[in-house]
């Protein structure tokens, strides 16, 4: 079968079920393309030979009742995978091999999928361009020298470059949606508590959430159905009625009320983003939705709030990487010296910056002014959404304030880098589900995404709106395979 790698997940599943395609053929096709795509630098760890063995095993005794029968896929290297190196994009975990499996990846393997390898990401998921990874930056398949977004940059590049049919990322402040937007792919950040955090290397515990990334909404819905589960191993996992998202997916969204928050019209927003948003509103109307202007008054405080809460939690979450138990250890004169050298050499600049910010905002004398205040503002931001959702079913915004930028362009300007998350962080602070779908191109031909934010636990509604709009938008990703010689 020709052109296996360009197929959507749904058609791969159909072909495997109808025995037009074996798992081995599919797996080999993605491995073959991955091998030709080293320049994208998407993989930190490849597990190709194992993948082929597993595919053969599947083909010998196929179980077509599974949701991902014999489907090969790569995952972000923030998910702990048993016996497979898990680095979180950091030198400090360069040779760390977990003896355990994250709940989310276990859910995926339970449904018959096969691990291809571990995908590059910003170090400890801290970054918006994949440039903070110890394993080097990732190239965006859209164009040479372009960032794939971050932190799930390896994931977004691997999906859009067709090195994996689907993948999973994690989203703490936009790390699924922004890279999806930058690569012309679909990425869902589920409600906080929908996907278990067990076995995911933690960045900011109250914000981290795993989610699906795919070429289209349908595939995204199926993967969400697989990965979302109530897990007693994660105390923040929530036991709610989870839909069969892919089965219940519908384009029928007539009469749905979609809010347009005026505060997202930020100063200096490029006209093409404004235009995209306007087009999005028209698409939503075409789908039969009702457009309602809303206000989310505390939006402008979201970014500073995020950059207090997330580093605060990170500074504590990353304390365990101390050279004592596992991971990288530098030689030191004594315990303190060993700590200092291990952490100075083991962590990159951005991670160190955030640890310092986090340590500062939690320090005695500053706690009230920063951390406590940020928590109060966080509550106000959540209240904004609660108020808005009395009037609307979902909210439509741009995913990012710009299209993908050049590698190196913002590397030395953290604030400008942080501004990339301006439309995505409020969602994490409020714990809501949101999806980014590709909705158009800018004048350079780079993809642009629209974000649909839903009510808590209403992933189905978010997916349905995205599904309906995707159909109207008719987006085509422009992948030229420029990196394949």
């Amino acid at each position: 079968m020709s052109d296996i790698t360009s197929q959507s997940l749904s058609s791969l599943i159909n072909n495997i079920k109808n025995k037009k395609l074996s798992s081995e053929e599919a797996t080999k096709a993605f491995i073959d393309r991955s091998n030709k795509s080293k320049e994208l630098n998407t993989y930190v760890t490849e597990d190709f030979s194992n993948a082929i063995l597993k595919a053969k095993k599947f083909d010998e005794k196929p179980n077509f009742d599974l949701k991902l029968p014999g489907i090969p896929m790569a995952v972000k290297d923030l998910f702990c995978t048993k016996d497979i190196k898990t680095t979180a994009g950091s030198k400090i975990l360069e040779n760390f091999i977990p003896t355990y499996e994250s709940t989310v990846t276990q859910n995926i393997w339970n449904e018959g999928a096969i691990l291809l390898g571990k995908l590059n990401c910003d170090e400890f998921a801290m970054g918006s361009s994949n440039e903070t990874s110890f394993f080097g930056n990732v190239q965006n398949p859209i164009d040479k020298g372009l960032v794939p977004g971050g932190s799930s940059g390896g994931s977004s590049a691997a999906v859009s470059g067709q090195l994996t049919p689907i993948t999973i990322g994690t989203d703490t402040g936009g790390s699924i949606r922004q890279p999806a937007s930058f690569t012309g792919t679909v990425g869902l950040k589920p409600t906080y508590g929908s996907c278990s955090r067990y076995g995911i290397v933690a960045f900011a515990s109250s914000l981290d959430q795993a989610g699906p990334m795919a070429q289209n909404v349908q595939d995204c819905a199926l993967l969400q159905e697989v990965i979302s589960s109530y897990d007693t191993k994660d105390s923040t996992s929530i036991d709610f009625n989870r839909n069969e998202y892919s089965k219940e997916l519908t384009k029928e969204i007539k009469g749905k009320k979609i809010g347009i928050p005026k505060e997202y019209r930020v100063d200096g927003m490029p006209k093409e983003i404004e235009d995209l948003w306007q087009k999005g509103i028209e698409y939503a109307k075409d789908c039969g939705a009702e457009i309602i202007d809303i206000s989310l008054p505390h939006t402008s405080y979201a970014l500073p709030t995020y950059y207090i809460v997330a580093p605060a939690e990170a500074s504590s979450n990353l304390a365990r990487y101390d050279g004592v138990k596992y991971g990288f250890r530098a030689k030191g004169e004594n315990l303190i010296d060993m700590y200092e050298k291990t952490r100075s050499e083991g962590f990159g600049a951005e991670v160190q910056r955030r640890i310092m910010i986090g340590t500062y905002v939690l320090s005695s004398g500053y706690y009230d002014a920063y951390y406590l205040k940020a928590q109060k503002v966080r509550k106000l931001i959540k209240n904004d959404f609660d108020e808005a959702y009395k009037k609307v079913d979902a909210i439509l915004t741009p995913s990012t304030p710009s299209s993908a930028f050049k590698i190196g362009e913002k590397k030395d300007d953290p604030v400008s880098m942080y501004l990339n998350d301006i439309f995505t962080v409020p969602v994490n602070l409020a714990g809501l589900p949101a999806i980014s779908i590709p909705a158009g191109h800018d004048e350079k031909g780079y993809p642009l995404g629209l974000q649909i934010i839903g009510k808590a636990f209403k992933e189905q509604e978010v997916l349905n709106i995205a599904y309906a709009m995707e159909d109207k938008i008719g987006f085509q990703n422009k992948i030229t395979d420029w990196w394949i010689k």
Partner: protein
Amino acid sequence: MSKENSEYLIERYNNVYEVVIGLEVHAQVTSESKLFSASSTKFGAEPNTQVSLVDAAFPGMLPVINEFCVKQAIKTGIGLRAQINKRSVFDRKNYFYADLPQGYQISQFKHPIVGEGEVVLDMPNGQKKVGIERLHLEQDAGKSVHDMDPQNTLVDLNRSGVALMEIVSKPDLRSPDEVSAYIKKLRSIMRYLGTCDGNMQEGSLRADVNVSVRLKDSKELGTRCEIKNVNSIKFMQMAIDYEANRQVDLIEEGKSIDQETRLFDTKKNETRSMRSKEDAHDYRYFPDPDLLPLELTDEFIENLKSDIPELPDDKKKRFIDEFKVSPYEATILVSDIDTAKYFEEVVSKMGKNKDIKLAVNWITGELFAILNNKNLEISKSPISAKNLAKLVNLIKNGTISGKIAKTIFELMIDGDKDPQIIVDEKGLKQESDPKALEALIDKIIDDNREKAIEYKNGKEKLFGFFVGQAMKASGGKANPQLINEILKKKL
């Protein structure tokens, strides 16, 4: 004893100082598994054999609260007559140390599970109430071993994550003796509740001791020093004594006291500075985002309340009312749950015609003496409550004398023998036949004519001589009461 006499005061020249003490007791929760993981808490296992991925803080591992430990903390709070907080929050206390795998300890800072309560101490000069500030749940750290390898510090994480209750007292204690009584009372309450075994040798109970001094009658608190991690009552008392005198000396020399953390050196019997206030850690406490606030329903708390056994104070009151023992005796009997259990079993086995006073004397006298001698807990007593009850009954019904009883008691120790069988086998039954005793006494008076005349002429001391002769003649088996009566009549 008057109140003044029991006060612990430090005098220098014309100044009299009072010592103010507050304790932070760390009590290990009695529980099969740890506070946030399923690993075993069993004491004495090989190093690093009771460590889960959570305890060792592997990437992506998350804490899940152990409901049993929460119940244990609430029960303890009820035992301390304390406020149970329906909402409490777990915080992270951040600091780096080799035996702290997470780089933070999960504790409760602003919102503890248990609030203010009270413990009543029975002091020689009366009761003393000690306020409880709070009780919170927290994880224990691992153990750093510095003396097993010349080059390296070794770390044992078996203890890492074990549940502790930190019980903070108000600064209500005024002497080493009160501290001793307080620790013993806390220990007793927790042992009654089964929430902490109180084993100080195994580290299940240890305390940070806050000490300050002030001029007697002063209302303001002095600057305090905290003596860290003292693990025996004796060391606490020694540390307080040393520290209080050190502080008084400083004041007398016109120097000020630095607020600091100190260590007690048990070999030199002195405290020394560990770190000053300036060097104090900034723990950067914040709510642990991996754990939701702990919210308890009234029903949950009420269910636990109904599960609380009779506690020492109530038991003491009942012993006084029901068994007519003295408050002093009652205090001794209830101080340890196993003693109280033993006593109640003796009482119940004695049947209808019982002499409780006599039983108390035997328990607190002979029995305690052999337990002490053999260094045994009462739960391991070589003489069962059933057999001690029999022995007391044998005395009470006149079968044996108290003196013979002591002989029998010694024989009972080996193999928990039935005293009745010993009496039968050895023919130790008391001679209580008046006719036989009269004949015996007649012979003694006959043999000692002169002494009998001296007695009649007023040398009353000689009465004892005749009793002794009679007892001797009967081989110790004569009923002493009857001997007395007959002698009085005949002489």
